[in-house]
């Protein structure tokens, strides 16, 4: 991993360095050191923010252009990088090329992902045990390289490679033998895709055809977490202590997916454009898992106690997916556009698993020694899903100050889920054929008064049936926007959105309302001063009846959010000093009340035309009304040097 990062950095720097002395080059770098200090729940801070003390690359950009006839190996280059170091994410983007020769696009991104929530997946919270039992500290690296070879006017060969790796340690849980045990996990998952093809372009027809080969390889090695052998639940089951002495599991998954992609846009006449696209991906996956454990355990399925389990699982999936689209766009004069389209999406799944379990040293609940018991379960799963979507859209533009649009969409969903005997806990209901047809409409208009633009957009959806309980039968929305500005002096932007969703059919009774309002005010009285103020409110209220599992009594699941955010920011340049600051406070008073304040301040001083120093301060203050152990307050101080030319 480190080798890859170094290789990407070395290549990018080398590419940039070779052009740095050229006639038209811009270079800008800002880097420095930051110190992070957290009081309160550091795990929550890392879960949400994850800033760390250390070196940080705030920004690097190199831009080069050589318009001469003989520019060397590149006539243009653009390198942008930011965030690497103490920041939780870093991004690097290199674009370079030479006319009629090549275009290279390289993108790399790294995310440090951390999660250790105090109350999530935590059955021991009442005992004061924190964090919860599902935690991880992992890294995700993403690389995307694309090389285009525009050697000919009409055909451009393309070759590319995508790579995505997620790895690192974590903790999770396993329910076995009558208890839950915390287990450690060492995960390594990589998806890579190599593709090649070509872009084609003539005056009337443009498009792309590529063939890719995607592979996924994942390995998860798991073991019993230190001190977790006693399980989550104290006491005994049927007079026997439940304990796990040892546990190990290795799961390996590989998926191979050829992917074919085709797009075409054709200009049939000056007023008609035809668009087609097609994607076909045929995934085929295999999983092998082996698990060994020993202890004092109970199986209600076998009505037995047992001392060990040797389990292996072999499984296979086959899942072809295709998606196609055909569309015609008609230019009906200077003011009217008509678009008619059809899209389909087909997905199938055939799954098979053989689960072989050897329960060792079993004893019936009545005390009869049974020896080892073998259990073989063969499961076969499957579903097909077909979506057919038709749409019609009309745009009427430039009618005086106005423009209007309207759209109608029909979405026909067919889902056929196969039931498998091995899955059945309670008979009936896991399988089925579902058909759902959703009609959607949208109408809107905008008036452009020059300094002010007013937009109103409303729509609705109506479905004849539902597939899941939380699907809607009816949904409507209205959105509005007013954007008023006087030159650069000030700008007021107000947006409002309301969404009403419900399903009052028998046995569901789902009802939800969401509103979202925002008001932004920006004033720039002089070039060197800018002030922004904003308010944002997000409110949602949903309810759906459910049955309380232990009593089967009906109850209502109610969820609310009512969050207000106030924020302000300013930027002020006085001679060689630039001051920028921002503050936001967000408070939610719904089902999960909390408050989060966030403040940043930065002072940058231009020491010379090329060199500047900057100091930054950032503070986060997070608190939950119901659970103060989650609260934290964190400061970040940073000192940075900037060089540009």
């Amino acid at each position, binding site marked *: 991993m480190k080798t890859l990062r170094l290789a990407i950095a070395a290549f990018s720097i080398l590419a940039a360095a070779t052009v740095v002395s050229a006639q038209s080059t811009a270079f800008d770098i800002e880097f420095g050191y930051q110190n992070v200090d957290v009081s309160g729940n550091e795990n929550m801070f890392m879960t*949400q923010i994850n800033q760390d003390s250390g070196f940080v690359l705030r920004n690097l950009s190199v831009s080069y*252009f050589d*318009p001469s006839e003989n520019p060397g190996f590149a006539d*243009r280059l653009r390198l942008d990088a930011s965030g690497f170091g103490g920041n*939780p*994410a870093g991004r690097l983007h290199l674009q370079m090329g030479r*006319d009629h020769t090549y275009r290279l696009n390289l993108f790399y991104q790294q995310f440090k992902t951390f999660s250790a*929530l105090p*109350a*999530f*997946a935590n*059955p021991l919270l009442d005992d004061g045990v924190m964090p919860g039992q*599902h935690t991880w500290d992992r890294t995700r690296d993403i690389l995307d390289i694309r090389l285009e070879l525009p050697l000919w*006017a009409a055909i451009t060969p393309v070759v590319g490679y995508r790579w*995505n790796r997620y790895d690192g340690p974590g903790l*999770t849980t396993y*329910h076995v033998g009558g208890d*839950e045990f915390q287990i450690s996990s060492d995960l390594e998952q990589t*998806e890579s895709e190599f593709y090649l093809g070509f872009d084609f372009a003539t005056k009337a027809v*443009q*498009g792309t055809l590529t063939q*890719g080969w995607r592979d996924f390889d994942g390995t998860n090695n798991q073991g019993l977490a230190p001190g977790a052998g006693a399980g989550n639940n104290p006491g005994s089951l049927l007079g026997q202590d439940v304990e796990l002495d040892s546990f190990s599991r290795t799961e390996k998954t590989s*998926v191979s*997916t050829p*992917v074919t992609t085709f797009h075409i846009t054709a200009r049939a006449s000056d007023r008609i454009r035809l*668009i087609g696209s097609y994607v076909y991906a045929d995934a085929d996956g295999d*999983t092998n*898992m082996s698990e060994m454990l020993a202890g004092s355990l109970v199986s209600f399925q076998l009505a037995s106690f047992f001392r060990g389990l040797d389990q292996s699982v072999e499984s296979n999936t086959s*899942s072809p*997916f295709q998606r196609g689209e055909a569309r015609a766009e008609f230019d009906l004069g200077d003011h009217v556009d008509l678009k008619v389209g059809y899209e389909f999406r087909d997905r199938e*799944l055939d*799954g098979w*698993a053989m689960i072989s379990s050897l329960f060792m040293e079993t004893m019936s609940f009545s005390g009869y020694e049974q020896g080892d018991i073998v259990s073989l379960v063969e*499961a076969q799963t499957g*579903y097909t899903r077909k979506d057919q979507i038709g749409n019609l859209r009309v*745009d009427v533009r430039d009618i005086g100050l106005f423009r209007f649009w309207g759209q109608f969409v029909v979405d026909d969903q067919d*889902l056929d889920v196969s039931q498998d005997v091995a*899955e059945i806990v309670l008979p009936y*209901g896991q399988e*089925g054929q*579902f058909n759902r047809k959703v009609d959607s409409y949208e109408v*809107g208009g905008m008036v452009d008064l020059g300094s002010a633009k007013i937009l109103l957009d409303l729509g609705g959806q109506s479905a004849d049936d539902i597939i899941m309980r*939380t699907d809607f039968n009816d949904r409507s929305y209205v959105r509005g*926007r007013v*954007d008023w500005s006087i030159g650069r002096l000030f700008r007021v*932007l107000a947006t409002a*959105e309301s969404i009403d969703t419900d399903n009052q059919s028998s*046995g*569901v009774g789902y009802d939800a309302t969401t509103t*979202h309002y925002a*008001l932004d005010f920006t004033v720039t009285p002089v070039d060197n001063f800018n002030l922004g103020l*904003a308010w*944002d409110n*997000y409110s949602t209220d949903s309810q759906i009846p*459910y049955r309380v599992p*232990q009593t089967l009594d009906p109850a209502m699941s109610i*969820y609310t959010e009512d969050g207000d955010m106030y*924020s302000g920011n300013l930027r002020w340049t006085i001679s060689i000093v630039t001051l920028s600051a921002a503050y936001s406070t*967000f408070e*939610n008073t719904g089902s999960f009340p909390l408050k989060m304040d966030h403040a940043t301040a930065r002072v940058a001083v231009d020491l010379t035309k090329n060199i500047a120093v900057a100091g930054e301060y950032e503070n986060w203050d997070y608190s939950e009304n119901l659970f103060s152990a989650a609260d934290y307050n964190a400061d970040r101080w940073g000192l940075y040097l900037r060089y540009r030319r």
Partner: protein
Amino acid sequence: MVLGVGLAAAQAANDDREASEACAVCHDTVAAELEMTVHSPMRAGTPSCVTCHGDGTKHMDNDGDPSMINIPTGASGAATCLECHGQIQQMFAGRWAHGDAEVYCGSCHTIHSPHNAQPMQLVKAANDLCAQCHPSQAGSFEKPFGHDLDLGGVQCISCHDPHGGGGGSLKVDSSGEIVCYSCHAEKRGPFVFPHVNGVAGTCLSCHQPHGSVNPMALTRSRVDQLCLECHSVFDGSTLGSQPPSFHNLRSPRYQNCTTCHVAVHGSNTSPLLEK
């Protein structure tokens, strides 16, 4: 035919370049800047002033009257850019994501400036550009759980295609599926025992990607509440309502469904999503 098209385009570009030389007499600063961009008229086959602004004869004859020259704005302005940027045109096809709001190429991209501070010739940082018209969405990222839009993190354009595309305003991944898999590749499956995704819902059935007040960016603050809304039976048969949960939720042990059902994104080894 292909060769003919190429030669014709090159000839047209040469004609335009000669006609554009007159522009630089007055617009010397812009012309000088333009020469240092990929749109430089010095380069063979590239556009020039005339390519986008049209014949400037009347403009020059009327003392530079700006009404006498084409200044690409709005949808017609976008059409000018799309004449050359065929790949973008292809993306735009039928999905004029920003057409409703009269956003055109120049709203976000600068044409003339060399060495712009932002990549893709953007007039300001990508996230700031989106936020100036979508403040509600930008505000959602101030919530404590969700994607990090800060330095080096995801950008709005990581998931959304401002030009439109196969998934509407949402991008699709390389195989035409929901964009979430572009990063969260391990959630793609396929799984022998799938759950929600691809069957009858998407990632958005349970998660709020823009930011959430709930851990794991979930749509509900309590996991059991989120699960029970589907896994509950009244009358009728909806997918997922069987088998209904039968655990005693008064026990903390069962209030955290995912403590046992850890593989909520799908499993290849456990029908009950326990590993």
